[in-house]
């Protein structure tokens, strides 16, 4: 039994064996590629060694599960083992983590990024130009997607021309609507915004009237609510004919007459207490039944569909420009420039943006497919929660301003500086006149890089 007393050498040997066996433990075998649907060319046999990692920023676990199931399906279709990584959490900003991983060489092969970040990623040389692969793909055309995102996704900063390169493909699009608490609106005796919209009378004056009447219910009830980021207040600036940038997108436009008009309207709502205080998250009070109209995108629908009161959506009211000033929000699947398998990564991007895959994501109700066409619209209109889904499409049809990167400056810097000064305005720290004098001082520095 002496051998059982384990000398240090035996122990070290046992540990070494463990370590050696660890380095050779086989990874799970990749799934066998399924037979392609009839009529489609079979996927090229891929090496067993090829593994692609891809990432999106799902809003919740259910959405992450949808992407995971899509990953399995696409994996069979293109014959490559795929590892889906849901990104983002309360403590880790999705883009910050992604860029850090890109800097350290541990980023996934394919990932989703918001439209505003395309320029930042391109100019840092982090994205692969997919044009050569797209050119060889039968049936591929830039025109299958909305032109606004494709303008930025095909923009070549070296030549200043669009259409030359391809940085990625849009995953989905979205627009703002107003989520309505119909019970509160009825109780307040306010006109139904949906009826006003149908009658073509849904403008800022009508919007303010509804907000006032709901607010008059008293207590902690508010007529309107939005969250504190560039989208909501930007929509009001757009609706007044203004915007963040000049036409060439190379200078700050926050102090133009039109932009100020949009902000002045919004400021009035806050100053008169008609809105949930700027900076507060408006979704909890809306879901608690204390806000009449809540401005948000399609991504909020799954959460809001669980409320107990009667709710629906209506398009944004039209502003002085005659348009609702909506945004066309979008994000794109792009490919890591350092991927070892660029062609397979392109296949993955292409597969992820096929109509049937987009329909699966859209079925969650969080977004609108990024492909154009009546057929896509029809599919979208069938999607739960079977409310006034047309309101989202109306937003797309009314000359929306595409969320876009800043090719001549730093969007993160511009956003940060603009956010601070707009926050000062809408929380009453500065007046509109003071805002007009200083609003562009800091954001303009974002163009100096």
């Amino acid at each position, binding site marked *: *039994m002496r051998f*059982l*007393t*384990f000398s240090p050498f035996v122990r070290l040997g*046992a540990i070494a*064996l*463990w*370590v*050696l*066996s*660890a*380095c*050779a*433990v*086989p*990874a799970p075998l990749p799934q066998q590629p399924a037979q392609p649907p009839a009529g489609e060319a079979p996927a090229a046999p891929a090496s067993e060694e090829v593994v692609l990692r891809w990432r999106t920023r799902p809003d919740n676990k259910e959405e992450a599960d949808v992407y995971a199931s899509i990953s399995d399906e696409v994996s069979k279709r293109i014959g490559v083992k795929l590892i889906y990584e849901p990104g983002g959490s*309360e*403590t880790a*900003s999705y*883009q*910050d983590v992604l*860029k*850090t991983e*890109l*800097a350290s060489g541990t980023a996934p092969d394919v990932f989703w990024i918001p439209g505003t970040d395309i320029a930042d990623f391109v100019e*840092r*040389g*982090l994205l692969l130009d997919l044009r050569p692969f797209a050119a060889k793909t039968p049936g591929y055309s830039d025109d299958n997607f909305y032109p606004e995102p494709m303008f930025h996704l095909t923009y070549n900063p070296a030549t200043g021309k669009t259409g030359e390169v391809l940085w990625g493909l849009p995953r989905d699009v979205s627009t703002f609507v107003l989520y309505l608490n119909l019970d509160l609106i009825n109780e307040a005796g306010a006109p139904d915004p949906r009826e006003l919209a149908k009658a073509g009378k849904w403008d800022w004056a009508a919007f303010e009237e509804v907000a006032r009447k709901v607010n008059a219910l008293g207590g*902690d009830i*508010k007529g309107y609510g939005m969250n*504190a980021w560039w989208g909501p207040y930007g929509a009001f600036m757009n609706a007044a004919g203004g915007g963040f940038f000049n036409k060439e997108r190379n200078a700050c436009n926050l102090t133009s007459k039109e932009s100020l008009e949009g902000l002045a309207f919004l400021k009035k709502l806050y100053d008169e207490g008609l809105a*949930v*205080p*700027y*900076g*507060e*998250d408006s979704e*909890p*009070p809306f879901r*608690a039944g*204390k806000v009449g109209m809540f401005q948000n995108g399609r991504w909020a629908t799954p959460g809001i569909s669980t409320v107990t009161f009667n709710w629906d959506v209506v398009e944004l009211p039209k502003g002085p420009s005659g348009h609702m000033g909506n945004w066309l929000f979008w994000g794109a699947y792009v490919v890591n420039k350092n991927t070892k398998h660029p062609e397979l990564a392109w296949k993955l991007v292409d597969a992820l943006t096929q109509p049937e895959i987009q329909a699966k994501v859209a079925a969650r109700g969080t977004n609108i497919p990024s492909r154009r066409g009546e057929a896509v619209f029809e599919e979208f209109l069938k999607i739960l929660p079977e409310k006034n889904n047309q309101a989202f499409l109306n937003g797309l049809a009314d000359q929306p301003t595409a969320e876009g990167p800043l090719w001549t400056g*730093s969007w*993160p*810097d511009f956003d*940060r500086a603009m*956010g*601070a*000064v707009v*926050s*000062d305005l809408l*929380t009453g*720290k500065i007046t509109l006149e003071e805002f007009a*004098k*200083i609003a562009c*001082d*800091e954001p*303009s*520095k974002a163009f*100096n890089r």
Partner: protein
Amino acid sequence: MRLNRRLFLLSDLGPNRVLASLALWHGVQGALLIALGVGGLVSRTQLLSLVHGIALAGALVVGFLSVVASIGIARRSHIGRAASLVVHYLLFIAALIGLASALDLFKGLDVLADYAAEGVPFLMAFVFMVGYALRTIELSERPVPRWRRRIGSAVMLVGGVGVALSLGLVTALLDWVAKLLQSPSALVWLALAVISVFLLRVMWRDPVAAWLGARRTHGEQLVGWLFLSPNLLGFLFFFAGPLLFSLYVSFTNWDAFNRRDWVGLENYARAFGLVVQPLRVPDQPASEALDVRTYSELMRVHLPGQSFLIGARDRLFWISLGNTLLFSALAVPLSVVPALFLAVLLNMRLPGMRLYRTLYFIPSVAAVVGVALIWQWMYNSQVGWINYFITEGINFINALLGTDIPDPQIRWLADSSYALLSVVIMSAWQWIGFNTVLFLAGLQTIPRELYEAATVDGANPRQQFFHITLPLLAPTTFYVLVTASIQALQVFDQVFIISNGTGGPGTSTLTMTLNLYQNGFQSFRQGYASALAWILFVVIFLFTLFQFRRQRKASSAYES
């Protein structure tokens, strides 16, 4: 002994030949490593990554040590032997890491963790643990009996073999050998590891030690350093290395991807850059008084007859500095003073005190993110619990007294006047528990006889607190103050969650660490962010130094 001599054939060559060979080996090795390090540093047009930087710096250091070893061995000095042992030890460690990396060992360990966590391997691991428990756990005051140790060993052996077999040890080893043979880099690393071990063995041998004049104490010193080396290497690679790297980066405009120019003190000049301009009229626009492309308005100073505008190259640096100091000035007393009184209460011998101690400590061990999210909801001005209680309280008072006190409806997180205060309250709430435990530990070291004597002398509880408790608690108080101040000056998580990473509303919750994060990981100005980190380090260092000086003065005054 004969066996050892056979193994050590080099000794038969005689000291001159062996030492000459070793000196030559080290000379060539040193020259190669220095050439590699210098060449790598000079030829790189890009700023080095941390890993490359450490590798090249390591090559230079080991190369230099190798040259020292070569000269030392040639002169028959024990310093040459010590340097040689250190060089080969470091090369052996580097070779093992390189081998593990070339064979994907680190990835393999991840896979192993997944496999071993379930099924038969997990069961076998459990058997192994049962064996360990049988072998070691003492059920009485007597040592573990021999029979139980033997059975325990046997069970451990069965469990260990079971784990290895269920994980496919034999296949795995064959795969490992195949991988090794297919990977030239792995073979190079393996060869380096074997050579290093061989030369370590050669240099450690008594004859070589004697030829180089090494005494027994020299060997003992080296063994001491060997035991210290895991910690020392960890400190150098994972703490000192990155620290020095960040200092280096702070003198560049590195963006972590492409840009990498040496900019000297520019980052520091940018942070501290201020300009003071007299104003024609107090409300003269900043754009008329400053070059707004470079400077931003920081503040206006109104003196009798003349107003001045202070502009900053980076106003956010000054704002974040001010916010951080204000946060610390509020959060430290709020988390220390109540903790002291709480500790005094919890130190009383009353029933249920253990439960209370646990309850007060819970916030300290709760995750900051969870705590911040819960407080974010509680602070919601419309549906949050805090405003709900304030409203109910005011309604109750108004109904009771017939008054008409208005409901303030405080916008805790949306009003820049309250936002930082909200973070202070939340942080203080979270830190109180930990400080209380420290004070409690300090209180329990104060001899009870002192209180008994004071009671006999007629001192009341207040006098006892101020004349016995507080002075004798001074070392603990000092420690709590220093750690709480450092914690407050580095506040990040709370403001990041509460403000959704913006430092808003406006810039009211922008602290130095959040500003550093925004620069480093959102705008990717790593160079500037590193400079901000070093400035924060200096601020904390000066603050701590100031507290040390005050403590020393207070102690000497008390002792005198």
